């Protein structure tokens, strides 16, 4: 595995917002087909790191490679690279003026150039996957948070991405709706999707994650097998964080 190109490679990435140093030298690799969970206290920079991977945030310095292509290269075709990276947001960010079906087909048609029929077929397949096949004519406002998030996952999947980024996908949900979303993510992982997940769901990280990254203060403090890191943290800061959340 070590010889193949990693799906995501982060090299010495720094990100400053003015004087606020959010990321100070991050190195990270996500191998193809693996699930990497990123945990840490709020303000640790984990969401910023995730947003740097598809260049929603421009790193102040450092390089990020997506399947070997440098997305931080000023000459990179960022739009094209992004269409291969699915992104799921904490606030779902469905398009409220479009039906569920149109949410799923818009980018397929405008970015991938798919015909209307093909786009709808792909959309239906993904709606089925997230268990919401009967919702294609609904509008986002009429769906629960959990349903909206599953639609958002289906929308990202409809672009046939090579990898998925999840930015605290269950943090905005009522507790009883979290399970449905996690179940969909678990299915995805078992199908071999490469995933980078910023989360507070330690159960998910332990059960599904191949690798766990603990961030604090803009750096990776500890990284390794989730069961090891969660069960026997080595670093003081990891211990202190886990003692509060577990």
């Amino acid at each position, binding site marked *: 595995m070590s010889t193949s190109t990693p799906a995501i490679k982060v090299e010495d990435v720094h990100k400053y917002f003015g004087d606020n140093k959010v990321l100070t030298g991050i190195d990270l690799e996500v191998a193809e087909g693996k699930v990497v969970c990123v945990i840490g206290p709020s303000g640790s920079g984990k969401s910023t790191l995730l947003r740097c991977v*598809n260049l*929603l945030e421009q790193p102040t310095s450092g390089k990020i490679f997506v399947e070997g292509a440098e997305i931080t290269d000023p000459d990179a075709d960022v*739009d*094209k690279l*992004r*269409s*291969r*990276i*699915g*992104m799921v*947001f904490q*606030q779902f*960010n*469905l*398009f*409220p*003026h479009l039906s569920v079906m149109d949410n799923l087909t*818009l*980018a397929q048609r*405008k*970015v*991938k150039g798919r015909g209307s029929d093909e786009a709808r077929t792909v959309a239906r397949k993904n709606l089925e996957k997230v268990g919401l096949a009967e919702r294609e004519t609904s509008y986002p*406002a009429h769906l629960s948070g959990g349903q909206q998030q599953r639609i*958002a996952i289906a*929308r*990202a999947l409809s*672009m046939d991405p090579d990898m998925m980024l999840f930015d605290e996908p269950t943090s905005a949900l009522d507790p009883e709706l979290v399970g449905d979303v996690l179940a969909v993510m678990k299915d995805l992982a078992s199908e071999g999707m490469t995933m980078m997940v910023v989360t507070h769901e330690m159960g998910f990280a332990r059960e599904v994650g191949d690798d766990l990254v603990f961030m604090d203060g803009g750096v990776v403090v500890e990284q390794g097998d989730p069961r090891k890191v969660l069960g026997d943290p080595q670093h003081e800061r990891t211990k202190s964080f886990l003692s509060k959340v577990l």
Partner: protein
Amino acid sequence: MAMSPRKRAQVSRYVQYTVLVAVVVALALSADWARLQSVFFDLDIVARQFPDVITVGLKNTVLYSASAFVFGLVLGLVLALMRLSQVGPYRWIATGFIELFRGVPALVVFIAFYFGFPTAFPGYAIPGGTFGIVTIALGLVGAAYMAETIRAGIQAVPKGQMEAARSLGMSQTRAMVSVVIPQAFRIVLPPLTNELILLTKDSSLVYVLGVSLATVELTSFGRQGLNTENNLSPLILVALCYLLITVPLSILVRRMEARAGRAR
């Protein structure tokens, strides 16, 4: 004898009704209704205004304000996007335009266009004659106001919408066109409709341009009627015609605002 608060409120309400009824009755009795009608709403004179008040006056007012609105809306959208542009000069030009046309009375713009344009550009004529001039002059003023409304609408669309669109691989332009602008327009539909009401009333400024029989709009029509009949009735009729346009529009605005309120 102390009254309970409920009793006091009741008495106060009775007093208010009594005053109202007294004033209405006094006015009704003291007014010379026949005379008022002959001055303001002489039915014979009113009848003589038909059908032209509708087929010419009302039609032209609707035509002027609708075409100015469409022109202003398109220009306003362009200006709004320029205001939000990364390119400095675009922002400066848009800001300058908006400040100019919001700060100058529409009447001045009308006169400047009508008399200035033929002199400034000899040999060129604005296509459509009076209709073209009104569309452009009124549209320029409307565009300045609508640009600020649309800009506010675009900025009111949550940032996550643009991010979600970009994450799906859409370009900045594509995301604007397919995701942000449609939502912005839903947000600003009520204020834009208000702008249409204002434009409808401002189309009366055509009056100062001196118009021909075919291009006359409501206010000019009423003013002409006032001259020929030596009576205010045509003007009152014209005023009612304006209400025929503006009242349904403002009801529409209130409905849209109520619906937007519910959706939130």
